[in-house]
């Protein structure tokens, strides 16, 4: 059977937030900051107020000035006294139509007194840099330290710096380089949208392009002084997430506006607003030092990351930001030190993107691994083989994992490898990179099973289907556990007041979490005394941590005259256990890899002086069907998965290693090393000339 949502999506019947209308609904639009860092001297709303169709114009003084956020609470609903990035919400218009609201918002006059601004993490932590948040230490959820730069949201480290330095000094071979993984956007195709209907403090309904409804409920409640239980997030179809739709977006604003005007308020962003005021991935500068002994065994690694968090730090699950940026997860490293500097700048606030931080960190580390292999004079593949973790090894966090199947995956990738010829006159190159992603089996969700006619059941879930096929997986797991045909099971998304919990999609653990709740539900269903609905819920971590290795091999051709390159074939070899839905699993592999390719070669949130210059999808290029290379997939079965469903994570596996894989292939072809993303023909051409 096909996906539960296939027909409604293919006919256009599925309702996304932008498709929903409520009776009596009005529309909001915002005036955004045109200054990267400034005091707001004056806001003149008089012209806007007189525009046709306008119901009201609101600034920070009209609504709650309590800040909001996921964990670090540092973000105002509307800028108050000061703006910190170009694109920040300063004032809002509510009008009878979207167009009237937008036209009026354009007439709001804001006077700024410019302040000195700072745009990169390295600059922002220098002595004397402009201070972006004078109150950093007092924010709720803050883990900043008074001894650090006032722009430092978090400075954390792991391992022993001295030991790592010492080991590097005595290593037979070392490399030391700086790499840069640029800012890119999640690139979901559905712009952010919200409808809020504030009836009373006891009755608020929200439709939001968000994947974690219970979290939104709490955050909106906290900043507006409403009991979270009185806020009900409605079920929606989500048009892509990739980490970009975990924040409350414009829900606090729309709810506050709805309370002001006493009507449901809808706000749909234009994609340019998503690009300039969303929560794209952190740009990360990395300083890497690696050492090896004469036999090619890694001796030490130092990974120092400078994470540009943009103007607000509230869009990640913790103030620490994306952990993957400074992780080294696949190899045995006797002396390891890492440092993460997460820093405020006057740029678009940053959030999580598919495998948070790992795409940036893995680009640097897997590039450096290649560079060290060449320095030793070893084949980069053999160098990796020699250093991959094996059963019993601890990783650089000191963790033991249930299994390490890096060698099996590497061997399977090489066995499946067949060279593809480059066009005549082009240079041929082959590159590899390795990534291992570990996932805990934390599960927090709930479902209700209700008997309906003819032996059919209806399954209700608050889990938002982000597109990955989670509702289909739920149906299939239940069908297997209950011994029932899928056709007799209907899966329905429900509002947050219908069921107790759901942690939201993320961390590549949706399938594992569903399997856990389905186990509980199946038992309750089998043991039920009467034909009445049962509710099953799980909340917690079963303590099982599993990992999955991925090896990518890219074959590229580079035109020596222009630096242009094409990917001749792109291989993903992956360690898997059971696969519940093979087609959905494959799409996660292909889609994740193509996203990685786009991010590494086409996409670039081109910020200059805090301004995103390519703020539309015509200039911010996403890969098309024509840009997608031929993919080859090698599944390496036999791994140990989580729970009775025996599944491994997949959604965040294929994106992170892509950048280094391509950079390594380009090096193989040209003998030139590109250390800053994106990999463009221009950079390759320059490098070949130089």
């Amino acid at each position, binding site marked *: 059977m096909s996906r539960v949502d296939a027909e409604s999506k*293919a006919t256009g019947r599925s309702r996304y937030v932008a498709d929903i209308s409520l009776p009596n609904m009005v529309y909001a639009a915002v005036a955004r900051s045109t200054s990267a860092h400034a005091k707001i001297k004056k806001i003149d709303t008089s012209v806007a107020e007189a525009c046709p169709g306008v119901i009201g114009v609101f600034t920070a003084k009209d609504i709650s000035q309590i800040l909001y956020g996921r964990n670090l609470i540092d973000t105002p609903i509307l800028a108050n006294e000061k703006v910190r990035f170009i694109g920040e919400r300063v004032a809002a218009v509510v009008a009878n139509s979207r167009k009237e609201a937008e036209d009026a918002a354009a007439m709001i006059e804001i006077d700024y007194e410019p302040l000195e601004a700072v745009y990169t993490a390295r600059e922002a932590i220098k002595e004397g840099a402009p201070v972006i948040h004078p109150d950093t230490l007092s924010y709720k959820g803050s883990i900043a330290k008074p001894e650090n730069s006032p722009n430092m949201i978090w400075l954390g480290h792991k391992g022993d710096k001295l030991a790592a330095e010492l080991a590097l000094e005595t290593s037979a071979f070392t490399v030391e380089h700086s790499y840069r993984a640029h800012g890119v956007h999640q690139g979901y195709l559905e712009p952010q949208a919200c409808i809020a209907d504030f009836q009373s403090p006891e009755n608020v309904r929200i439709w939001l392009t968000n994947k974690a409804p219970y979290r939104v409920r709490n955050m909106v409640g906290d900043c507006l002084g409403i009991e979270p239980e009185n806020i009900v997030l409605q079920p929606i179809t989500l048009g892509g997430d990739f980490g970009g739709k975990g924040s409350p977006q414009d829900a606090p604003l729309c709810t506050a506006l709805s309370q002001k005007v006493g009507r449901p308020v809808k706000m749909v962003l234009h994609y340019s607003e998503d690009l300039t005021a969303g929560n794209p991935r952190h740009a990360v500068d990395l300083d890497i030092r690696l050492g090896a002994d004469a036999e090619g065994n890694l001796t030490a690694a130092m990974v120092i990351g400078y994470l540009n968090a943009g103007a607000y730090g509230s869009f990640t699950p913790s103030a620490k930001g994306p952990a993957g940026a400074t992780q080294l997860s696949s190899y045995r490293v006797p002396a390891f030190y890492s440092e993460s500097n997460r820093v405020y700048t006057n740029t678009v606030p940053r959030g999580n993107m598919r495998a948070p931080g790992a795409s940036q960190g893995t680009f640097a580390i897997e590039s450096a691994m290649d560079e060290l292999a060449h320095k030793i004079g070893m084949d980069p593949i053999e160098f990796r083989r020699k250093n991959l973790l094996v059963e019993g090894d601890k990783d650089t966090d000191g963790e033991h994992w249930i299994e390490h199947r890096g060698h099996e995956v590497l061997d399977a990738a090489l066995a499946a490898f067949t060279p593809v010829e480059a066009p005549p006159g082009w240079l041929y190159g082959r590159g590899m990179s390795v990534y291992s992603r570990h996932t805990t089996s934390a599960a927090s969700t709930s479902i209700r099973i209700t008997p309906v006619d003819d032996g059919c059941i209806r399954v209700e879930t608050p889990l938002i289907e982000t597109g990955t096929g989670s509702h289909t997986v739920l149906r299939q797991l239940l069908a297997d556990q209950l011994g029932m045909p899928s056709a007799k099971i209907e899966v329905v998304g429900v509002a947050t007041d219908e069921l107790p919990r759901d942690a939201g999609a993320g961390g590549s653990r949706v399938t594992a979490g569903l399997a856990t709740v389905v186990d509980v539900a199946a038992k309750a269903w089998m043991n039920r005394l009467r034909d009445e609905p049962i509710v099953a819920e799980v909340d917690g971590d079963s303590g099982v941590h599993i990992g999955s290795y991925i090896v990518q091999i890219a074959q590229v051709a580079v035109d020596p005259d222009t630096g242009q390159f094409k990917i001749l074939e792109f291989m993903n070899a992956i360690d898997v256990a059971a696969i519940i839905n093979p087609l959905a699993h494959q799409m996660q*592999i292909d889609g994740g890899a193509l996203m990685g390719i786009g991010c590494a070669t086409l996409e670039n949130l081109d910020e200059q002086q805090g301004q995103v210059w390519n703020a539309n999808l015509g200039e911010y290029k996403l890969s098309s069907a024509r840009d997608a290379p031929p993919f080859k997939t090698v599944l390496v079965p036999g791994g140990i998965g989580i729970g009775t469903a025996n599944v491994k994570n997949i959604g965040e596996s294929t994106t992170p290693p892509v950048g280094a894989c391509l950079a390594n292939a380009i090096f193989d072809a040209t003998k030139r090393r590109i250390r800053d993303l994106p990999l463009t023909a221009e950079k390759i051409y320059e490098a070949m000339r130089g």
Partner: protein
Amino acid sequence: MKLSMTLNGEPFAAEIGSDAMLVDVLRLNQFTGTKEGCGVGVCGACTVLVNNGPVSSCIYLAVMAEGAEVWTVEGLTSKDSDLLNAFVEKEGMQCGICTPGQVVSCYALGIENPSANEEEIREFMAGNLCRCTGYVTITESVRTYLDSK
């Protein structure tokens, strides 16, 4: 001003602004199957058929559709079951926001070049972006539809 056209085979009339885009007219009149993504004519989420050719309705002035025959995803999938079946069977979607546009473009390719090979399919469909799937299942859906013709 007034717009009259044939929409999904039926007469359709609406009062519109002279600068209204076709996507807005459709969506305001409950035809929300047509999506708006980029809003600047590059992602293809808003693709509809005007006189048998695919257009990006987000940059297509509604007045230009005066007297035209317009088809949206709703109309095409209800009149051509092979079109719907191809995408359902091959699961040519994940989040689905790009899907209506993919479906309309697929139908348009069926008119223009029903014997398109893989490369021609990818070339024709290059104006319909998809962030989720990596395009393999979409291309297979299109192949399946063309084969059914």
